């Protein structure tokens, strides 16, 4: 950390060259545009059937994206440092909304996850992810030295438990992602690995209890192992069919057959299976490499950020993206049980894409803070 301070003080002297991570911007734009193309390809047929408008899903996604890009511009103008004093407020706001959604939310399926403001719907759990990133980044940057003691790491982890409970009540997969983000950020911050053994143990016990506690979740395990025996395994199985039928180079953009109503809700969590069907294993690898490139840019930014708060913000964002990509693809390939995790920038989901773009805005804002010697 001493080296860092030296670097920063030197940076203050040489203020001439401002940095901006155009690489990240290019990757974001590319993934975002690719996501829209795939979303349209996947949803046009269903949208025509249901709404007599093939653009229905695309339009809604674009609307959320406009808000997201507005956020990027604003964050680039305002920087990221103002987020630090507000980190507690974000945390409380996310907590309140996540509790509120349980009572006033609108259900789609068995869990109520949406709050409606007039025609606009909003998923508080997406805010919770960002709030945790900001809150932990702020905390770690304030008390980096304390985290050398593994007991403080465990304590820090307990800070996010209050938010985790209402989120998990509604949406286990989001809770897992939030826990994963926290785990990853603290892991990066702490040189002592003992804490993580404890946290992992607690996490494992918690997950086992949770699964056995809720019936529909233990069902999912069995569906995962034998999707062909279950009616609910239909989505998983059809996703696998889509992946398998794509071949090396796919059927061609727009040529998926599984999106024609066979894979339910293909534009949401299962969109990667349609990507595989249309673009093949080659296309899928390209998409994964794009994500990897994005994560690489995050790492560069985090390593060169002007302060620890910015650095940990980007680390949190990086872990967030990585977790969602890994979990989503793992679900689609039936490597893990089916949980509702969206594929960043590609899956349909207004709240999700908006907050993802906010996160990109934060990362870019952090990158602007980098001063090149």
């Amino acid at each position: 950390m001493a080296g860092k301070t030296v670097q920063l003080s030197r940076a203050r002297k040489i203020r001439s060259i401002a940095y901006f991570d155009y690489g990240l911007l290019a990757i974001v734009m590319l993934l975002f545009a690719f996501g829209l193309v795939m979303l349209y390809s996947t949803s046009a047929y269903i949208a025509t059937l249901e709404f007599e408008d093939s653009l229905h899903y695309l339009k809604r996604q674009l609307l959320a994206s406009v808000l997201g890009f507005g956020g990027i511009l604003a964050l680039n103008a305002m920087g990221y440092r103002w987020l630090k004093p507000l980190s507690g407020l974000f945390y409380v706001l996310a907590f309140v909304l996540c509790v509120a959604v349980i009572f006033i939310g609108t259900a789609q399926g068995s869990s109520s996850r949406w709050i409606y403001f007039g025609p606009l719907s909003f998923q508080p759990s997406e805010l919770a992810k960002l709030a945790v990133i900001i809150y932990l980044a702020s905390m770690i940057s304030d008390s980096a030295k304390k985290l050398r003691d593994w007991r403080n790491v465990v304590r820090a982890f307990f800070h996010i438990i209050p938010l985790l409970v209402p989120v998990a009540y509604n949406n286990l997969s989001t809770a897992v992602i939030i826990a994963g983000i926290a785990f990853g950020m603290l892991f990066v911050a702490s040189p002592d690995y003992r804490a993580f053994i404890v946290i992992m143990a607690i996490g494992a016990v918690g997950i086992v209890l949770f699964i056995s506690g809720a019936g529909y979740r233990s069902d999912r395990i069995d569906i995962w192992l034998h999707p062909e025996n279950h009616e609910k395994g239909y989505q998983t199985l059809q996703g696998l069919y889509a992946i398998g039928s794509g071949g090396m180079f796919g059927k061609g953009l727009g040529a998926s057959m599984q999106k024609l109503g066979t894979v339910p809700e293909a534009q949401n969590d299962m969109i990667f299976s349609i990507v595989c069907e249309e673009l093949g294993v080659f296309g899928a690898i390209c998409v994964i490499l794009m994500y990897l490139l994005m994560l690489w840019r995050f790492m560069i930014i985090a390593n060169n950020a002007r302060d620890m708060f910015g650095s940990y913000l980007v680390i949190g964002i990086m872990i967030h993206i990585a977790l969602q990509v890994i979990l989503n693809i793992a679900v689609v390939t039936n490597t893990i049980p089916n949980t509702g995790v969206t594929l960043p920038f590609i899956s349909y989901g207004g709240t999700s894409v908006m907050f993802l773009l906010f996160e990109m805005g934060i990362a870019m804002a952090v990158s602007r803070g980098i001063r090149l010697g």
Partner: protein
Amino acid sequence: MQRNLWIVFMVVCVLFVILIGRLAYIEYASGEKYERIILAQQQYDSQIIPYQRGDITDVRGTVLATSVDVYNVILDCKVLNSNKDKIESTISYLGASFPQIDTNEIRGILADNPKKQYTVLAKKVSYEDMRNFVKLTEDEETGSKIAGIWFEKEYQRQYPYDSLAASLLGFTTSGNVGMGGVEMYYNKELNGTNGRDYGYVNSDNNVEGAVVEPENGNTVVTTIDVNIQTIVEREIKAFNRRYARDGKPGSKHTAMLVMNPQDGSVLAMANYPTYNLNDPWSLKGVYKKSERKAMSDDEKMDALNKLWQNFCITTTYEPGSTFKPFTVAMGLETGRLSGNESYYCDGYEHIADYNVKCVNRNGHGMLDVRGALMKSCNDALMQMSYAIGSENFADYQRLFGFGQRTGIDLPGEPRTDSLVYDREQLRHTINMATNSFGQNFNTTMIQLGTAFCSIVNGGELYLPHVVDHICDDAGNVVRSFEPVVQKKTLSRETTTQMKDFLRSVVEAGTGAVAGVDGYDIGGKTGTAEKLPRGTGNYLVSFIGYVPQEEPQVVVYCVVDVPNVDDQAHSNYAQEIVHNVFQQILPYMGIEPTVPVVQEEMPAQESAPVTAEANTPENTQQNGETANE
């Protein structure tokens, strides 16, 4: 920090590599299998385009049975539910256009099965109603308020004349399966092949659409003449109304067969009671409401099955005296009779402890062959049969087609081989004696009618048929039925002699009631006592032909158990034949050949025939009578 960040990044990289491996493995291990599964589970959205079943027409092309297009109203809940703002307007438009649809039911269906894409709301709405609704959906303003409704085409069988020729035509059940009559016998010709509107996956894995047009069924043109059929049915109905009493119609069954003896074609075939082809499952009009209510399902089915029977084809009975011409003809043809013999009738024959009685219990006295037919004397016929001998009798009975199916193109002809005696059984005098006047063996109307045609047409036994030709839906003849001579039964000399005798029967014998002024009509009456004997139940009949030279029409009428106290009079059948002759002869263009009315018509109980006053022939006839 940096070291740990690298660890995280490396872990992520490893996980990515694992996932890529997983993807490649799925593709490698099951790619081909999954591709096949996907192709197999494509539903291509294919839709059947139904063919139109062919028409049945009479000989002049009047349509007796046809298929009209009707439409099922289909609701797609998924589409309508996703257009929430259109639900109420769609329901109200539906309710207004199709009053048979219960609008509350639609709301229930939409709520209960929100994703169901196929629900039939109404069946068989007419083309006009369908068209009116489609116009609404095509209209820009109203069309924007309707969603999730489409129509499915179907054909419905319709019979423009309701009950006309019901048992001859038969009807269809769902799926175009003919039940009885021409509908059943020519089911294959009438039916076509369904078309299909379907999508398929081409070699580039794109779904393409294609339409295979349906092949419509062929039109069956029958030999039936609607006008003759109508006259026949009207007279049968009038008879049964005239003799109705105690709430029962004039007879248990009344049936009539009108044939062209020159080619074996059937001009009309009717029976009573009958049913409405457009409502074949109803017993209305045959049974009273209270009777229908008391019936169990099995009883109802039995009653329906009886009602659907074509009496002329399926019912066997003892023909009685209408068989006598056959006995005489076989005697003449074999040379065992010359036609000049005389017989003494003492009222009965004593055979093997039985007294087989004649119609006239006191005996007819001396009769020649002509007289025996004119008086319908059983005693004389029995004596003739002795001369003919059992072997000749058995052979000729079969030559005329008794005991065999005629092969008419209608379903339901029964086996009758066990209902006639063979040579061995005919050796018993009692058997042959009773057979000679038409008792103790069974026949069907079509058998006797067909055989009788050969007596009057010069001895040619034609294959009876009800279908003239078959056309495709463009009107091209695809199959034509030429007259088929099956057997030569009698020589021309014998038939000339027989016609001479038969004319006398109508001129001055028991068949006088059937005669019509101005026409040379020949025929034979029949009054057969039914089994069990002695209960007073009779089947009375008359068979006749016109004109004497080259007869153009043979009419055979059977009245089974007339609803009167004294049934044993063939007049009941003759009345109907008389009325029918009076109307169809002018219609068929058969000219009167006798200028003078030589004897008074027997008193008619029947109402005057409606057509009488209008036909020019009758006017002319009356004029001639006046001149005399």
